């Protein structure tokens, strides 16, 4: 079943102590979503509150991938924390718009932009990330 030629690669760096930057590469679909979820759960477990998802190298994402993003969004929101999507490819951006996820999960063009949003949110301290 899994499409072996397109394994998902997830690289995690920590620009701040409580901020995880996950650089995702590959198809984010029903075959790879679980792996992605493990990475996110791991970071949650280690106390990260803000999740920056660099999706520039994800050419395709289906509803499974999107549900993972929504799940981490829901968990981060209760911390409180946040989820940011960084420079999605057009096809992924389209899915985000189509499903309305981009209404709730902010989309940034760069890591710096996303970090600025994180800082702004932390400044208001615990306020709801979204109106």
């Amino acid at each position, binding site marked *: 079943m899994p*499409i072996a030629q397109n394994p998902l690669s997830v690289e995690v760096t920590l620009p701040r102590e409580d901020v995880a930057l996950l650089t995702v590469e590959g198809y984010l679909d029903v075959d790879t979503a679980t792996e992605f979820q493990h990475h996110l759960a791991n970071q949650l477990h280690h106390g990260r509150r803000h999740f920056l998802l660099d999706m520039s190298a994800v050419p395709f994402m289906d*509803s499974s991938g999107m549900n993972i993003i*929504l799940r981490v969004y829901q968990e981060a929101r209760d911390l409180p924390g946040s989820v940011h999507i960084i420079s999605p490819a057009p*096809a992924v951006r389209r899915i985000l718009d*189509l*499903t*309305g*996820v981009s*209404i709730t999960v902010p989309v940034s063009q760069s890591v710096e932009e996303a970090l600025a949003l994180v800082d702004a949110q932390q400044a208001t301290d615990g306020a709801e990330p979204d109106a």
Partner: protein
Amino acid sequence: MSISEQPREPAGGEPRDVSATPPPPVPPRTRAADGPADDPSEMPPLSPVGRLAATVDRLSREVRAAQAEAEGRALIELAKGILVERLGCGPAQAARQLAELAEQAQLTPLELAVDVINQAARDRMSEVTDAFLAATGTGDDTADDDAGDGGAESAAVRLRAAESGALAADDTQAVADALLEQALRPLGAAAVAIWAAGSDGSLTLAGSAGFSPAEATRWRYVPPDVATVARRGLTERAGQWITSLAETGLPSVGRHQFPEGGRVAVPAGTGGRLHGVLEIAWPVPLAPQPPQVVRQVEALAELCAHTLETYAPPHGAGPQPRILPDAVELMDLADGLHDPALVLVPHLDGAGHLVDFRIQHVNRRFLDPAGRPRAVVGGALLLEAYPMAAGDSELFQRVERVYATGEPFRAQHMSLTALVDQVPLSAVADISISRHGNAVLLIWRIEDEAARLASLLQHAQRLGRIGGFEENVLTGEITWNGQLFDLYGRPPTSIPVPLEELPGHAHPDDAVPIGRFLRTLLHHRRPASAAFRLQRPDGVTRHIRIVAEPVLDTDGRLLVVRGAYQDISAQHWTEVALAATRDQLAHTEQQASERARLTLQLQHAIMPPAQAPLRVPDLQVAVRYRPAETEQLVGGDWYDAVMLPNRLVLLCVGDVAGHGIEAATSMVVLRNALRGLAVTGAGPGQLLSWLNIVAHHLTGAVTATAVCGLYDPARRTLRWARAGHLPPVLVRGPQANPLPLVRGMLLGAVAEAAYEEAEVQLAAEDTLLMYTDGLIERRDRSVEESLAQLLSTVRPAPSTLDQHLDRLLTYSRSDTDDDTCIVGIRVG
């Protein structure tokens, strides 16, 4: 008359033995028949039908002998002519010489004649050429001085000899056959037509060879003033030499058979009178020919002219058409079949009673069960060729009945018997008989295919340690393959063990299953299998599985039992070990499949794949639901189309994330919730907002997408909103476009969400489609591309909405096995 004959077979088939005097050589027995009758004049003690068959066979031999004698006479004449030429003697002297030579060579005069002709035929073409070159003064006189008067006379002798041979045959048809086989094939030609010219300028096909019989029949007459290749050939002295028929655009016989081939049409005349045209067809384009070949063809045309001189064109009402039109079509049909087929036409006696069928045609696939060449069977009477057809198989009666009633007959495993030199050979065949017009088409498929597969099978059997067997119940004959002897631990030369003796070779404890196996197979005549322990003479015990099936004849009688033994000793212990595990697995599997079935039932109960149509004035509404192909993938797609109390029509499709019973349950909740909420009269944005709350508070935190619209039939407007779902598509005339992507979060992800609304004004003939992504989802492309593909599919809108939706489902390029919903409305 007194000549003993051994006629030459023009087609190179097997020689027919026609003589009654010398006993024909006993043919090699291909089968070890148990009691073959060595004396051919005496039939084995057969049924009266067998005796009748023998009589018919003997009669037909006599008829053939008479024919052959006539042919033989012509050949003797031909040989005499050759001797006259070679020895420069008179005909009477030549005849004596032939007899003497034959006696010395211990051959029949006919055989010798054949030798002489063969010898002459070897250099025939060059002789004709040389002779004609000499006669027309363009070449050297190369003829032997032995011939006396040189090339001109030699040519005359040769032509006369050929002519006499040709005239000895009963029609121009035979001349055509002879020309093609002996003179034209060496030149690469594939077919020949001899046309007789009528005084009115018409052409009649007097004889042809190499064209299909049907084609020849179609071209039997060409009215005056019709420009054909032959017609052109008649008007030009040098004839027509055409490189490729296709280039001329001229019609002619066999144009479809040899479309690109070369054609030659030369006038056939004698003594300044034109009698017709000789037309020759090549299968390939014809390069310009050397003068020798041109002369040869002209010589052949002259030969034709001699036969045409005496040709009496059939009068209008006089002779019956050689082939009936029904039969012609049927012959074409038969030629297109992949199974052996015979075209039969009724053969009536003087009083007009049906006595037999003439085998009008046999197709290319035809294989005689007795192995005779096609030409021998074609043209013969059915009972003559297959005397045993009147026997137990009742083949003849079947044909007769089909001819009488028109009711087709089909049977499998029918046993056909053919008599070859008094030895009845039987073959099992599948038979189909049907009537077409006045003709009958008989198709059979000899089970020879099995034989061809057998060697392939043997390899497989060796690898799988499978021993094959076949047991003839009637004769007791048993065939084993080598592998089976190995399994039994017996030498291949030993006698095979009959099935009935199987218990004696098995472990005593296995007697019951073996008994059951034999009863099923031999008594109930059904396929059977059994596993048992085989006790070999060398003391080894093997676990064997035996499978066998009965082969029945048309009357349901058991003919043959065949099957295989497989050595499962290695497998056996593995299976014992697995059995316990399997029990456990089966239990789990059963639970899973029950669960899947329950989910499917649930879904069907809530959302029947076909729904009663919704009646709204000036609006067609259609819905489609296609479940996922795999039961386990039962999904959470839903649709709804319902008239609300405020006279608005609620239209909705939605998709709960995930599969299985949880998704289906959530789907039910959301669908019913939306129906209930819609009764409040709220707008679609508000409805989705509420629905989001429902989804968010469902246990298991489901997410779902949906698009929801309220159609106002009075204003023809649709007010709609979407929750993470693909927007509806509007098909208007040749255009198909998605509605704008208004903002709307998917359901259940956040506690509270707002949904933008949009309104679209519809016009008459507009179609609007809502669908779930099962329709378009593909891994290898973006939603954009998939959507574009979908739109191109819906663009030429079919006449009805139902067709439209069906086409969408049919041509959907989705590659995920997901369920799919479509709701469509068309403003009427």
